[in-house]
């Protein structure tokens, strides 16, 4: 592999050999671990979907903490957020801090109920729950399709993160498209290979390595870098100056140092919308369902904010780079904000430590990408393949389809990388958020009430999806003139700007409520609810709580 990589390295900056060697060693170590992980704590062969996709559902507090951390510590955290801070400041980037703080109180409320009802009925995906609760395959299909669609740009963001590291190391060339993208494709292939062979256990085990590497890098970076560039006072002064300076193209200020009165709405809605959306993603729900009792998630909710703190420090690295005068220039010779954190490390650290940092970023993008693609694949297999395509598929067939689809999802993510503006990678995640948040009413409201009619929820979902997609498509980036240029747009009737996901969500709920009233009046059948009120409180040790027999037995 290194020969191919070296051959592709025809960039003008030259390859950082030491950093590359360190990255390769750590990468290979992790890959080997991934393959070995197939045998770790294994209760049965990987042939069954539950075993491959949910790690046999036996993870305790400790492992779950790392798995959930994997949802937050991604390329989003250490590439996209600092890049956004570097480019346009607080509203574009720092909202991630309140987002990752308020996500825990929110999931504290409803996740335990989802755990209980899932474990009493053998639900593995959010669409399973929706089908059982509303007796509606149509609504279940909508939830499944949305989950798969929304996961793709999120995985795309991870691929952009890996690409940023490789580009700063000088891998890849500017000669042609293949030379530029070859390293990305290599990383993609490794991810696909170990995910394919070992399922969820590989990323769970690697999460330990990943988080350890990240902590080392962050502690060093946060202690060393600010002192090096003149302390936090100087850092914030430099950032303030840059953000106030008018942009030569638009004449407006470059960015936001501290949100003014008009910007408080975008800031708050981006945080709230992202927080509500995070645990609608199939991979987040997979992680929660893998825990071994209903309170693991609540216990973790009190320690997970440690992640938010570190995320905040990482965000500030964007400002550190401003003070340090970092120049993130891509292989094509154009400035690219996404490269700012790897470039900062390359400029200030000795090669070997830059290598450790690069490995942390690359592996940190790889693990979540694996978890996300597995969860999306589960969703397809259970809720589309089994429900619509081949109802009497064997367990072995299902596991096989799941593995194939996890590859397809990654290819879909690759398409997003090529289609969207890579300069603004944080927008990938926000775009996914617009879609996934439209499943919130069916899932979370459904955990508490059957008041909403199944077809009304479907109607609300459709309206939210269409409104969100069209509105996002119409946002034009003033600098590049490209569409899908941002995720904040005017809120109808309010005369303020807000995160499109949340506006679409409100519209979704209003439509769902109105249509429910109409369908009630027309006495349209409500569908059968197979859950009972006490199912939402059941805990491990309760006789009603069980693993799914047809999935856990050896296939």
């Amino acid at each position, binding site marked *: 592999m290194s020969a191919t990589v070296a051959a592709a390295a025809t960039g003008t900056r030259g390859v950082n050999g030491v950093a590359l060697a360190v990255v390769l060693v750590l990468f290979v170590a992790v890959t080997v671990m991934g393959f070995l992980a197939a045998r770790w704590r294994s209760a049965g062969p990987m042939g069954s979907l539950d075993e491959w996709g949910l790690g046999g559902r036996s993870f305790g507090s400790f492992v779950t903490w790392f798995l959930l951390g994997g949802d937050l510590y991604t390329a989003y955290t250490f590439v996209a957020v600092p890049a956004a801070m570097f480019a346009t400041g*607080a509203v574009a980037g*720092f909202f991630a*801090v*309140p987002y990752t*703080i*308020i996500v*825990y*109180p*929110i999931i*504290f*409320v409803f996740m335990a109920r989802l755990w209980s009802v899932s474990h009493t009925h053998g639900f593995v995906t959010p669409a399973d729950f929706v089908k059982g609760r509303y007796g509606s395959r149509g609504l279940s299909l909508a939830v499944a399709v949305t989950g798969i669609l929304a996961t793709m740009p999120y995985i795309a963001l991870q691929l952009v993160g890996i690409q940023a590291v490789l580009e700063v190391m000088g891998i890849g060339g500017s000669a042609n498209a293949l030379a530029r993208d070859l390293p990305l494709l290599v990383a993609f292939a490794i991810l696909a290979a170990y995910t394919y062979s070992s399922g969820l256990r590989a990323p769970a085990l690697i999460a330990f390595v990943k988080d350890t590497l990240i902590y080392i890098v962050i502690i060093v970076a946060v202690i060393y870098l600010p002192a090096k560039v003149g*302390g*936090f*006072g*100087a*850092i*914030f002064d430099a950032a303030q100056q840059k953000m106030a300076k008018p942009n030569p193209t638009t004449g407006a200020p470059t960015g936001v*140092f*501290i*949100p*003014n*009165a008009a*910007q*408080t*709405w975008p*800031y*708050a809605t981006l*945080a*709230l919308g992202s927080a509500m959306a995070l645990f609608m993603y199939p991979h987040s729900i997979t992680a929660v369902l893998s825990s071994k009792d209903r*309170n693991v998630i*609540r*216990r973790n*909710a*009190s*320690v997970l*904010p*440690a992640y*938010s*703190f570190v995320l*905040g420090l990482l965000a*500030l690295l964007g400002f550190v780079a401003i003070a340090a005068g970092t120049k993130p220039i891509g292989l094509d010779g154009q400035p690219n904000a996404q490269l700012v954190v790897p470039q900062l490390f390359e400029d200030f650290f000795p090669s070997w430590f830059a290598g450790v940092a690069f490995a942390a970023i690359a592996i940190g993008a790889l693990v979540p990408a694996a978890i996300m693609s597995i969860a999306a694949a589960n969703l397809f297999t259970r809720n589309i393949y089994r429900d619509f395509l081949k109802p009497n598929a064997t367990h072995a067939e299902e596991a096989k389809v799941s593995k194939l689809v996890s590859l397809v999802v990654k290819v879909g993510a690759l398409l997003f990388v090529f289609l969207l503006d890579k300069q603004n990678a944080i927008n990938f995640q926000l775009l996914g958020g617009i879609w996934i948040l439209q499943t919130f009413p069916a899932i979370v409201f459904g955990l508490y009430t059957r008041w909403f009619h199944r077809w009304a929820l479907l109607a609300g979902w459709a309206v939210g999806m269409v409104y969100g997609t069209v509105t996002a498509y119409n946002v034009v980036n003033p600098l590049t003139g490209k569409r899908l240029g941002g995720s904040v747009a005017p809120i109808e009737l309010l005369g303020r700007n807000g995160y499109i996901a949340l506006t679409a969500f409100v519209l979704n709920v209003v439509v769902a409520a109105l249509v429910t009233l109409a369908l009630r009046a027309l006495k349209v059948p409500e569908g059968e609810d197979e859950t009972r*009120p*006490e199912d939402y*409180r*059941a*805990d*491990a*040790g*309760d*006789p009603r*709580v069980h693993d799914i027999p047809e999935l856990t037995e050896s296939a």
Partner: protein
Amino acid sequence: MTDPAGRRTGSPPPGLVAVVAVVLAVPVVALMWVSSYNKEEPRLGGVPFFYWYQFLWVFLAAACTTVAYRLLIGHERRRRALRDADGHRGPGGREDGR
């Protein structure tokens, strides 16, 4: 929740639920209320108020979820202890695991 089976499986009393809800709502409301903290002064070690205030909320929010967790768990433990002392068993002789 009003049905007897629901109560027997350990639904927390409405008062406790309300307290927990308020405790959990505090960080959400505080952080959504951006106009209460979009200020530069006072700086702390060079860090503007806007930034250090949100870092502070990482810890305050963790405290809130911890309190909420303790309240709920404490209630479940007391209920279980009470049930064990009474020799109460759920239907079919099973004991509730909550």
